């Protein structure tokens, strides 16, 4: 009597297939693009010149990078590792230094009236600056703002900024408004190398 080969039980192949599918779905990165998002200022209109003057001098935090990739906060040279803390200090201005950005009380929906800084961070670079350094500085400035927002949301809502819902995020953004402005191109220092 010849033995019959038993058929392979195939009812679980579908499960295995789904398992594999889930695995690949989880692990494949779709070549996601990451980066620092920015909004460029619109090209200035000749008739709108006056508005720029309104920003008080003390409210502008000027960060410059020269052609030799040296970083200046205001007029003092600074190392990139200290830049974030320096910017945070200037933006918050805890000692109400008259040379640092002013604050004004503002009614914010959902939080109440708080002191809001009027600081504007302006980043200037030279034509000879390396892109790498420029991105590193941009990153530090973004980090400074993000950390300030985190601190504010911890204080107001007891949660990190990213964990807040949309409405609260909007409120925090109003509370910590500093935007990094892409300054008009200006050659700071002589560009020795291009």
């Amino acid at each position, binding site marked *: 009597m*010849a033995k*019959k*080969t038993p058929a392979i039980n195939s009812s679980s192949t579908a499960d295995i*297939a789904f398992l594999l599918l889930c695995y690949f779905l989880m692990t494949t990165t779709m070549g996601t693009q990451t980066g620092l*998002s920015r909004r460029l200022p619109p090209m200035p209109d000749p008739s709108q010149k006056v508005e720029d003057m309104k920003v008080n001098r003390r409210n502008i935090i000027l960060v410059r*990078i020269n052609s030799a990739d040296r970083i200046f906060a205001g007029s003092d040279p600074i190392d990139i590792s200290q830049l974030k803390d320096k910017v945070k200090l200037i933006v918050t201005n805890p000692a109400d230094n008259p040379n640092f950005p002013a604050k004004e009380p503002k009614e914010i929906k959902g939080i109440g009236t708080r002191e809001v800084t009027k600081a504007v961070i302006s980043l200037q670079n030279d034509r000879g600056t390396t892109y790498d350094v420029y991105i590193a500085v941009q*990153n530090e400035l973004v980090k400074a703002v993000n950390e300030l927002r985190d601190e504010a949301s911890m204080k107001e809502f007891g949660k990190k900024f990213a964990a807040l819902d949309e409405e609260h995020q909007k409120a925090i953004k109003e509370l910590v408004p500093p935007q990094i402005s892409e300054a008009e191109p200006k050659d700071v220092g002589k560009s020795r190398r291009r």
Partner: protein
Amino acid sequence: MSMFKKSEKKEMPGIASGSLSDIVFMLLFFFMVTTQMRETENKVVVRIPSATESVKLERKDLATYINVGAPIRRLQAQYGNEPRIQLNDSFRNIDDIRDFIAAERDSKKEGERALMTVCIRADQDVRMGTITDIKQELRRCSALKIMYSARKGQ
């Protein structure tokens, strides 16, 4: 009785094909997810700088890419090793950005044109002069949403 009858003829059992469709679908999904529709050939070397605060690009279908960097080795004899701008598949000048942006904008849906993001993928050794020129040109054609491509992490 029937037990003995059956064993007279020896036959191979057919492989169950019920799950074949599952496997095929799985493969299909996998490729659907991973393939990128149109990957332009890179003609410039782009080593993207890294930044810890980089965020994901939200609408990938609304992104436009401007590559900046030195030509790849194969093309250096022809184009030199100065940083060049690559739009779509060819080397272009600053002045071509205007047409490029206009064409890209036309290819997007009417309501979503304002959300178009220009993704600047520049090599980390490029000088800011080139980038500033690009930024000025983008401002002129009012493509104001930009993103500096950067890797996440250190």
